[in-house]
């Protein structure tokens, strides 16, 4: 949906603090999110969730860096990093996982490649059903 750098647009999608996004927020380029997102976030590149961000969405991306608050499952194909002060309520799967001192993770963690594939499938299915994390949707 979002264009790549080769096609002309700089490619980075930016959601500033205070801006609300609702729905299926998909892209091919990098994303920087400081606002509020409800639904699904999906890209093959990096997603950066800023300090002021408030996310109620499943995240599926190449790499994910979290500094804010995420309520939802996260699947990173390569790397997931939770920086100090971040808070994740949901299951996570990634090839490489970095959790800094002061970060909070409440959920299951899986680092096997098959688990990443399964989580990706679950994320897509869960989001189609209710645009909510699967875990939250079943509550």
């Amino acid at each position, binding site marked *: *949906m*979002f*264009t790549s750098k080769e*096609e*002309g*647009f*700089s490619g*980075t*999608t*930016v*959601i*500033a*603090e*205070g*801006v*609300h*996004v*609702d*729905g*299926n*927020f*998909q892209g091919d380029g990098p994303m920087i999110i*400081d*606002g509020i997102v409800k*639904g699904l976030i999906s890209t093959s590149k990096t997603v950066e969730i800023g300090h002021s961000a408030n996310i109620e969405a499943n995240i599926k991306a190449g790499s994910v860096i979290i500094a804010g608050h995420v309520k939802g499952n996260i699947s990173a194909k390569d790397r997931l990093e939770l920086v100090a002060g971040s808070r994740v309520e949901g299951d996570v799967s990634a090839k490489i996982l970095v959790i800094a001192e002061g970060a909070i993770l409440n959920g299951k963690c899986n680092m096997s490649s098959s688990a990443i594939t399964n989580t990706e499938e679950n994320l897509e299915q869960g989001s189609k059903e209710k645009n909510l994390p699967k875990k939250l949707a079943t509550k």
Partner: protein
Amino acid sequence: MYFYIYDEILSQQKYANAIADIETRLTDLELQGRIGRLGPLKSAKEMVKQAIRGGVNTVVAVGTDRTITETVNAIAGTDLTMGIIPVGGESRIARLLGIPEGEEATAILAARKVEIVDLGKISNLYFLTSTEITINAPITLECDDKYTLRAPAEGSTVLTVANLDTGTHCQDGYLEAFIQSSKRQWFKKNIQYSTVSFKKGKIITNNTAHALVENTYQVKLPTTISIIPKILKIIVGKDRAF
């Protein structure tokens, strides 16, 4: 065969010399053609219809961004190629297409480097560069029937939807939305920017507001906006922004 659409303001005496120089240069370059002048009772659409019947293959807008936009709307979707000679004030559209002002633009016309570009469409109006909305109320952009983007109600918000601008490309099949929103933090106002790209959308607000298209035309909100890929053949300069 060329057809020139002159802006209404070019009949003013102060532009007489500039027009004479341009016409002389066009004759030297063997690019002369018929001339139509815009006026209250003469639209570019009618002129273009007649020009097509007369076997014209290139329509040149001579004038300001208003003339260019009117000509774009008249020839979009036809087989005609469009040229531009900016006269009567700085033209943002011409600058982004790498076309210099006045007589110098005739060299670009003669070189005839043609690109096929996308056009944005807001309501029923085509635009080549951008459309802007400045509003002091919440504004929502629905994108591709997939998600909505809601700018905060605090302070004023500027929503710019661009097809061609610095950093955007008018051949990629997407529109880029830039949202400049402000957030109050104690006594200072923090300006923040959001950027997304999309193909079709809807701009919604509860307040009475207008979108300013190409800094020229106004379109009332709410309205639809979309990208129409590869719909205009246009002559460009080498210093173009894409």
